[in-house]
């Protein structure tokens, strides 16, 4: 009984060439941590299999199980690959690639019984960590980066120890520190690998800031919608925006040149929707066309820098109405919507100039007019009736619009987040029965009403408002600030913005979406929580700005801030090499200072000062010299009365080796600070040596 138990718990000492438990456990830990976000994004069954394989490998070390036989391994691996293919379908994308990588590494665990395999798994952990950032680069992932790299380094260190111990004599192999489980949680080894990592940071930072960036990608990015990432879509149906409302994650941030515009001007233009099929609003076929004559820059123009979170779409948000932007390969469409050629997959920074009061599309083409007036047949009879009634009452378009807005304001319309599915006559149901809804209900109903009345109208989606961070001097716009409004075309004025939501709930526009939440729905964010969130976003903003948004342009900026001229990529590369080699010297010194010794006492520190000053004159202490011997030798070498040095050495000896006294210590520290060795004989030494020669 006891023997069985003992066998169970006794750590098996590894034989020569065998992996130590410590190395395997650390490698598994590194793998688990590095793969964690990938696992979370995988189908649960797949993730569970990977975790099970990690667990099995851990148990195999603990209990001394044999490797899985080859055929079983092959079958299992193939099954896993099949699972991946089934789960992700045929769509080749980054998620599929990383899932495959994870699964293959997990399969590798089954045959991970050599140092080489272990090393491979540990080093691919770095790769896994790096790939995760293709999906998410938020600040919290910094801790993931640190943890992943640390564990992988630790694993590599432990693997190295297997080899080192292998090459030791047999006597040392049995020592407990070198092998077995006792070395598993040694704080010292963790500290060592941590140190290694910290030491890697300066080099990493130099490379990061000075490595030449690509202005253009080398190959195209797969057009793949990102999983679980929300943002504006290219269509609007009831509920599509209110989904966003619960998402407090940042959509973008804006830094203005000059004071921020007032809240009612903060309309961030997204996709413009023309086509309505009775339920869903969609973009027009010409929506991607380039605008031939963008609005002009005027004195009222606003200049600002956008910091857009990746959303996997081509929209680039901009304030009404964009004039120009620095985003590479971007254009302004006929809808006055800024779009890029490729989906935005990383945090992007770009400067935009907008002219808010620009006159847009003074002339409407027939195609456009038709589309802006088109409504599905035989729908919303009550709305049409209302429109006709209003048309008879008001001949002027502007008066009609004002009347509708007044009607919205005076009748019991409510602003609410509750999503109610609407039927075939959606606008009728909403305008006459429900009268409670979110901005998209209003925008949709308003557009239908306008079109019924013969006024060209369209829906604009985007964001409205935002939180102005006084301390950070930037505007934070969250997903929850998503909004939909309308534009109507008026003769002589072009497209004019009309926001029916503003008529219903003016607070929504003045104070942002939060005001609506508190009064409308019982989603109570405590004030301090929101405050904390805003504070956190400030850090995130800096992070985005300096780390994530650091691109070729910002690199130039950074160099110019350092007072360097504009440089080509080659020049920057050379600068990087120069900085690296310059840096290597202090790094070398720092890395290889005598380390691992006890901390110095006060007396020792003061004595070190004395020795450093002497060393500057080329007078070094031998390691095997006592302080007094050193002082005596220096005095002889200098041929001079550096009596002071001897005094210091005697004092130091007394303090270091004898009974320390506070008074002596103070005196010693004072004299040590004052000690300035005389430079080797300006007038003394040469003369003496001449004398000797003669």
């Amino acid at each position, binding site marked *: 009984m006891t023997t069985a138990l003992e066998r169970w718990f006794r750590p098996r000492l590894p034989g020569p060439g065998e992996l130590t438990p410590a190395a395997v456990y650390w490698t598994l830990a590194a793998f688990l941590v590095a793969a964690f976000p990938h696992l979370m994004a995988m189908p649960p069954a797949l993730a569970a299999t990977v975790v099970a394989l990690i667990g099995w490998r851990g148990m195999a070390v603990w209990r001394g199980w044999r490797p899985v036989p080859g055929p079983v391994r092959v079958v299992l691996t193939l099954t896993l690959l099949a699972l991946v293919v089934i789960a992700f379908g045929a769509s080749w994308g980054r998620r599929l690639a990383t899932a495959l990588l994870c699964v293959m590494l997990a399969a590798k665990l089954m045959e991970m019984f050599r140092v*080489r395999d272990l*090393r*491979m798994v540990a*080093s691919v952990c*770095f*790769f896994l960590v*790096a*790939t995760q*950032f*293709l999906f998410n*680069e938020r600040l919290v*992932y*910094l801790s993931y*980066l640190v943890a992943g*790299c640390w564990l992988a*380094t630790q694993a*590599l*260190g432990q*693997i*190295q*120890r297997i*080899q*080192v*111990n*292998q*090459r*030791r*004599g047999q006597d040392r192999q049995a020592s407990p520190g070198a092998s077995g489980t006792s070395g598993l949680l040694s704080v010292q080894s963790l500290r*060592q690998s941590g140190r*290694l*990592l910290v*030491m*890697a*940071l300066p*080099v*990493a*930072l130099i490379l*990061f800031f000075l*490595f030449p*960036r*690509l202005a253009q*990608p*080398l*190959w195209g*990015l797969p057009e793949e919608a990102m999983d679980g990432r929300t943002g504006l879509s290219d269509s609007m149906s009831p509920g599509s925006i209110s989904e966003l409302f619960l998402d407090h994650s940042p959509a973008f941030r804006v830094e203005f040149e000059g004071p921020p515009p007032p809240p009612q001007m903060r309309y961030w233009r997204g996709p413009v929707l023309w086509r309505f099929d009775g339920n869903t609003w969609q973009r027009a076929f010409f929506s991607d066309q380039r605008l031939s004559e963008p609005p002009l820059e005027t004195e009222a123009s606003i200049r600002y820098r956008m910091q857009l979170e990746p959303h996997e779409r081509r929209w680039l948000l901009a304030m009404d109405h964009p004039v120009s932007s620095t985003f590479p390969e971007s254009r302004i469409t006929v809808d006055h919507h800024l779009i890029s050629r490729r989906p935005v997959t*990383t*945090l992007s920074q770009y400067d935009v100039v907008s002219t808010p009061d620009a006159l847009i599309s003074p002339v409407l083409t027939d195609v456009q007019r038709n589309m802006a007036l088109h409504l599905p047949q035989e729908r919303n009879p009550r709305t049409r009736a209302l429109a006709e009634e209003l048309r008879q009452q008001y001949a002027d378009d502007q008066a009609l619009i004002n009347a509708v807005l007044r009607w919205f304001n005076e009748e019991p319309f409510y602003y609410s987040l509750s999503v109610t599915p609407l039927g075939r006559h959606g606008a009728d149901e909403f305008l006459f029965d429900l009268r409670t809804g979110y901005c998209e209900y209003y925008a949709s109903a308003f557009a239908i009403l306008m079109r019924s009345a013969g006024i060209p109208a369209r829906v604009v989606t985007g964001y409205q408002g935002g939180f102005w961070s006084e301390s950070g001097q930037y505007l934070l716009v969250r997903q929850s600030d998503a909004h939909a409004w309308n534009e109507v075309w008026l003769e002589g004025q072009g497209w004019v913005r009309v926001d029916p939501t503003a008529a219903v709930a003016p607070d929504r526009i003045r104070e942002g979406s939060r005001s609506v939440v508190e009064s409308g729905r019982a989603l109570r964010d405590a004030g301090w929580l929101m405050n904390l969130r805003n504070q956190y976003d400030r850090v995130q903003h800096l992070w985005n700005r300096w*780390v*994530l*948004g*650091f691109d070729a342009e910002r690199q130039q900026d950074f160099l110019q801030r350092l007072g360097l001229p504009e440089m080509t990529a080659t020049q920057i590369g050379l600068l990087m090499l120069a900085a690296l080699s310059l840096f*290597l010297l202090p*790094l*070398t010194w720092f*890395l*290889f200072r*005598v*380390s*691992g010794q006890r901390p110095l006492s006060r007396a020792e520190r003061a004595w070190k000062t004395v020795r450093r000053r002497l060393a500057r004159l080329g007078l070094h202490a031998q*390691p095997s010299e006592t302080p007094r011997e050193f002082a005596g030798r220096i005095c002889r070498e200098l041929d001079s009365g550096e009596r002071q040095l001897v005094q210091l050495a005697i004092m130091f000896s007394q303090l270091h080796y004898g009974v320390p006294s506070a008074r002596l210590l103070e005196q010693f520290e004072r004299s040590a600070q004052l000690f300035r060795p005389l430079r080797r004989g300006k007038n003394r030494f040469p003369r003496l040596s001449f004398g000797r020669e003669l």
Partner: protein
Amino acid sequence: MKRRAPANPPLTIQYRQVFILPTRFGWTLALLMFAMLMGSLNFNNNLGLLTTFIVAGLALNSMLMAYHNLRGLRLLHCTAKPVHAGDTARLVVTLSDQDGRSRPALEIRSHDGLSGFDLDGINLETVEIPLRTHQRGWLSPGRLRIQTSHPIGLFEAWAWFWPAQRVLVWPRPAENPPPLPRGAGDDGGRQISRQTDSDNFHSLRNWRPEDPVHRIAWKASQRHQALLAREFRAEVSEQVVLDLARTPASGLEQRISVLTAWVMQAHREGIDWTLNLGKQSIGPAHGERHLNACLRALAEFGQ
């Protein structure tokens, strides 16, 4: 330390003498890093780049650490106990370092093996390196490669030591040597017995009345509560002469092999012996020192 010729310790590794190259694993990681770099650059993914550069920093640091782990290392001296040809000699190398740094995970490789050690920066460290021996005489250990791939096995730094120290390899004793030539021939061997009076104290035994008083071990008696007497043993000593010319074997090496076996046997039995190797004659004497002298002469004979 000269690179091209053996030199006597102490030797210090200077910076020019340290070579450094990535290991296989180092190249693999470089490939991985390249993939990470390309991917991150293409996607303009800064955190990915940062991860890549952290790995690059790790690699650079481990290169420096491997290099500094060797530089300034001092080989103080090499010694080796003589062994018989065919046995594996253990070259004992004593190392220390100049700067009081600890230097983990070092290895010394010779033709015949590898051994690892750490230096703690305070004490001297001795390392035993196996050297296979084939024939008698002086064996030169050749170049020793001292190497390290500290801390994570990405780079291997190495330097060459070429100690001038040689290892004495005794001849292999014959497996079944003929019996010692005791008393054979006119001066081939003779026996003398020598009575030493009271020099060789042998043991204590109970006192008997016929023992002289000065033989009583007073102190010991006090401890044992009984009278004890010191017993001395008269030593009978043999002497043999071992002559190369008269050794019954064919061929020089075989004869030397037999002589080796004889010398060792004589030493085991505590006999005085003389070794005649043509012009050279050693002894008569006995003891470890004499044995060593004889074995050395046999090892060097004719070389």
